[in-house]
């Protein structure tokens, strides 16, 4: 149906300014749609919005009035619930100003012969059946109430004897008192440092044991002669956890032994997993090589070229695999390294730059081949 309304602009603005819908809005909207459908059935083609609202209002008022009158008659008869006679009486009351046929007749026994019912009967027979367009859910929907749990449900006993336990519990003291937010303890700088160092050692120890396990697994599958390295690792691991800070060269040895494994294991599917793990250590190898450049052993059996990777390390500190979610440990170790001073930072950078240049030169030589 077309909308011919123009005078409603003001009303719409008023509605838009406060867009909160009352509880009424839903039922009113349904009433409007129902009215529009009725009018369409009668033969209307267009409707003003204001007229539609008024008609819906009239219909709602009619229903409310009918309900009120029926209830009145039921209460008058000493009943709480209404029946058809109450409704008929209400209908006749509401039709009184216009009059209905048979009003002058004394109420005979049959209520069906009353004027109001007769009119409704006629309407039923003549009118077309136009059901409401959409299914309407039952409303208003009653939401579940969340009850405050009782003392019994909470497992508490009330503080006062006069309060029975089946009543809702009292609110917690933190809701009305100022309680401390966390446990305040004294912070001692020295003990904190010692604790931090201990945690670092523990982290590095576990990292070393992981590498040792990787090497062991790799060596057991490939039957390589890596036992001396393992023994060394075992020795070093058992001796002290300060491996990182005191023996960077030894740490480098461990990494070198791991590098020698991949070519032997590449053919085996089981070792591919290890290879990928070892590849993740590849970035760390760069850092190792920087430290090893100065004191090179004869064990530089690095076959492939490595992509240059810059680790964010502070000077004087060597690390193992970062991608293994050891960033936290890295940070911790970084902090620990700071205590030992920023000794070789610039030297490290220089060495790295030189190494990269050398690598690129070697690559250029390799490419034409």
């Amino acid at each position, binding site marked *: 149906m077309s909308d011919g309304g*123009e*005078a409603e602009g003001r009303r719409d603005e008023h509605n838009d300014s406060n867009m909160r819908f009352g509880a*009424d809005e839903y*039922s*009113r909207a*349904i*009433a409007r749609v*129902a009215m529009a*459908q*009725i*009018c369409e*059935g*009668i*033969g*209307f083609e267009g409707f003003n919005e*204001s*007229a539609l609202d*008024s*008609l819906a*209002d*009239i*219909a*709602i008022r*009619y*229903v*409310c*009035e*009918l*309900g*009120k009158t*029926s*209830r009145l008659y039921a209460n008058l008869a000493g009943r709480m*619930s*209404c*029946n*058809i006679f109450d*409704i008929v009486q209400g*209908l006749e009351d509401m039709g009184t100003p216009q009059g209905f046929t048979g009003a002058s007749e004394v109420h*005979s*026994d*049959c*209520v*069906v*012969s009353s004027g*109001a*019912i007769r*009119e*409704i*009967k006629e*309407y*039923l027979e003549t*009118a077309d*059946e*136009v*059901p*409401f367009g959409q299914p*309407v*859910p*039952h*409303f208003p929907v009653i939401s579940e109430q969340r009850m405050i749990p009782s003392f019994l449900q909470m497992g508490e006993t009330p503080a006062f004897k006069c309060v029975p336990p089946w009543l809702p519990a009292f609110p917690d003291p933190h809701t009305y008192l100022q309680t401390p937010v966390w446990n305040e303890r004294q912070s001692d700088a020295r003990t904190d440092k010692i604790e931090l160092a201990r945690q670092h050692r523990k982290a590095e120890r576990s990292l070393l044991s992981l590498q040792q396990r990787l090497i062991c697994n790799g060596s057991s599958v490939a039957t390589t002669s890596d036992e001396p390295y393992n023994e060394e690792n075992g020795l070093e691991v058992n001796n002290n956890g300060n491996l990182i800070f005191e023996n960077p060269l030894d740490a480098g040895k461990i990494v070198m032994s791991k590098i020698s494994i991949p070519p032997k294991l590449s053919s085996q599917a089981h070792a591919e997993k290890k290879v990928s793990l070892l590849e993740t250590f590849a970035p760390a190898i760069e850092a190792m090589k920087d430290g090893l450049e100065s004191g090179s052993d004869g064990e530089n059996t690095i076959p492939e070229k490595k992509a240059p990777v810059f680790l964010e390390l502070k000077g004087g500190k060597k690390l193992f695999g970062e991608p293994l979610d050891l960033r936290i440990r890295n940070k911790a170790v970084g902090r620990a390294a700071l205590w030992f001073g920023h000794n070789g930072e610039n030297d490290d950078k220089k060495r790295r730059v030189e190494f990269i240049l050398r690598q690129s030169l070697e690559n250029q030589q390799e490419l034409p081949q």
Partner: protein
Amino acid sequence: MNGQTSHQQPKDGRHDDDAALTEFLASLMDYTPTIPDELVEHYLAKSGFQCPDARLTRLVAVATQKFIADVATDALQQCKARPAVIKDKRDKQQKYGVNVKHQEYFADTPSAGLDPASRDE
């Protein structure tokens, strides 16, 4: 009731009445009114009307629908019977470039019709 002269009649009458009533209510249930039952139930509950019988709800719905249909039918007749003066006037205004908003209706006071019906109760 006129007491003793018609002893027999009330009983038979009541049976007939009951039959007629039942028949009427059954015919009610066949017809699906345009006004949905949930809406009617909501507003009846708001007015204090208590009845678990769905047929009575239908009766109220049909009565309301009949009432509105009567109003609308009269309005349609009025609309058709009214001369087409206002429509011509609007066309002529547009021809001459005059755009005047035609007032739909006139109210008694500025606050007339603003409050919804249910707020009165």
